[in-house]
């Protein structure tokens, strides 16, 4: 059992991109998230790890506004967003790539990407369509296909491209490599890394894949709905890997 419970070090200079404070989330009467604290700094990539069913997806859904916390607060760029609806949060700059991808099935790939534009705050930021075609060349030939007819890997790339179309400041990825063949995993990894380098956005990643986890700056480890360990990914010990990742 690892118990290196550390409170995140927040430099007084920077407003954190995202700050969760004592978050308690329930599904009906079952208590899922327990007193979760988590901080992501601007430009930081943070990885959330933990076994199946510990509440990682629940945490992302709470940040997105799909679930209401019973206690605690969520600060995004210094501003509390718990009372905001999901569409308002998206417009504030939170991009979400959910587990299972949730591509709108009977819309074309082009239309799915078009929907990604909804969240874009400043229209003057320019359109990202061409950038996305460079980032995921595989999508270029699929534009007129129905989203629901794509393969899992293609859907995952589309889901990421769709989220990036909205020019988010914080991108949340829920197990983007789940059920996807290794060569595509590497492509997705490279695309995410490239996006971080070129745009400087923050990323909150839920991941089981060790190689991808190691791309992150920090990790938070979850167990039974609480954060039980966190630190720099460079010091990810074999113990923690054994405990929290299914490798």
């Amino acid at each position, binding site marked *: 059992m690892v118990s290196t419970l550390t409170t995140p070090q927040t430099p007084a200079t920077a407003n954190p991109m995202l700050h969760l404070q004592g978050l308690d989330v329930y599904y009906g009467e079952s208590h899922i998230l327990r007193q979760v604290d988590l901080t992501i700094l601007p430009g930081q990539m943070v990885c959330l790890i933990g076994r199946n069913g510990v509440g990682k997806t629940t945490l992302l859904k709470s940040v*997105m*506004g*799909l679930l209401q916390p019973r206690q605690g607060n969520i600060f995004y760029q210094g501003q509390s967003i718990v009372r905001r*609806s*999901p*569409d308002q949060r*998206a*417009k504030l700059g939170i991009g*979400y790539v*959910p587990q299972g991808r*949730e591509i*709108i*099935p*009977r*819309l074309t790939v082009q*239309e799915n990407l*078009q*929907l*990604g534009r*909804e*969240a874009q705050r400043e229209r003057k930021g320019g359109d990202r369509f061409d950038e996305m075609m460079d980032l995921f060349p595989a999508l270029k030939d699929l534009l007129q296909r*129905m*989203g*629901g*007819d794509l393969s899992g890997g293609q859907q995952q790339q589309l889901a990421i491209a*769709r989220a990036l179309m*909205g020019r988010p400041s914080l991108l949340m990825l829920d197990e983007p490599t789940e059920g996807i063949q290794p060569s595509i995993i590497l492509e997705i990894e490279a695309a995410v890394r490239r996006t971080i380098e070129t745009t400087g956005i923050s990323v909150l990643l839920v991941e089981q894949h060790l190689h991808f986890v190691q791309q992150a700056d920090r990790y938070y480890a979850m167990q039974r709905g609480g954060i039980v360990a966190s630190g720099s990914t460079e010091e990810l010990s074999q113990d923690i890997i054994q405990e929290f990742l299914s490798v």
Partner: protein
Amino acid sequence: MSLFASSLFDGISIGAVLLMSALGLSIVFGLMGVINLAHGEMMMLGAYTTYVVQNGAKALGGGLWLNLYIFPALVLAFVVAALVGLFLERNIIRLLYGRPLETLLATWGVSLILRQFVRSVSWGFVAGLVIFAVLFWGGRWVLQRFRPGGLGRMHQGAIALITLLSIGISVTAGYGLTGLGETSFWGKLWFSARNVDVTPPGWLQGGLSLGTVTLPYARLFIISLMVVCLVGIYWFLQRSPWGLRIRAVTQNRQMSACLGIPTDRVDALAFALGSGLAGVAGCAVTLLGSVGPNLGSNYIVDAFMVVVVGGVGQLLGSIVAAMGIGITSYLIGSGTLGFVLSNMGASFLQPVIDILDFFATSSMAKVMIFALIIGFLQIRPAGLFPQQGRSVDV
């Protein structure tokens, strides 16, 4: 044969009306899972709007106005029905989201209220409504604005008091005004409880003669109107940004919200649009017959059948279903089918003809259509054109 052809044509125009009102039902049901039992009353409102516009045209001196009133009437029918639909969605349906049974009951209640409204509306009645609205919402606004800190339970009490007072005052005022009598300004009914008649513009009376068959212009107009509505809706859903949003929310509400689509505004817009289309259908119906408070209920069941048979959110399916139901019920209900068959003189068809004659009233035709639809749904439970392929979400 010419009887058959002209009946077929009449059936198509009935199908056109059904389609216009079913489109709205189908969009709303697909998007929100709401079955709006007040949808027929949106048609009724459209029809009464047409009646009012026509009277306005008469007051303006007839002539050109009486020939052209149908166009402003179409627009106004759409606007009036859409606004009432919007009000309904914002104030009732949205509060019952995710509770289909309660929604069903509430919209049924609304349909009864709207029917009674057109029966008893007069200036005194309207004055009562306005007084109520001003007192109730004004009072709540004042309470909200100048609420002394921490009224707590007193706040509930104050709201109850405002409600009671505004009901009391407005009911008294309304009764007092309408009590001035049928002939006074305040008491005179806008529409009588009986049906009213709209005269079609001159250029829509008469018909186009093709050999022995005459196609009434009014029905040709309705069919063209349907084509315009259909093309408009198709364009709106497939090509416009709001259409894309409606389609996205229909398929995946949560994810659409996560992408930044304001789902409540999408709901309101779609509901207003669907109601507006029903209003247009109601305007079209005035060309076929008289206008009464129960006008909507004559069409609403068939419109629901169109949605069921055609499949929710399926444009092509809805077209085929509307035409099928419109034509079949007209051919059977008017007795044309039996008549045509008996003229063919084939004696072995006699039992069929007897059956058709038995169903040859409009209500019996409905029974037969129901039976046919139930049989059809046994074979194709998902409607005429079920979704196929990977993108089906079961």
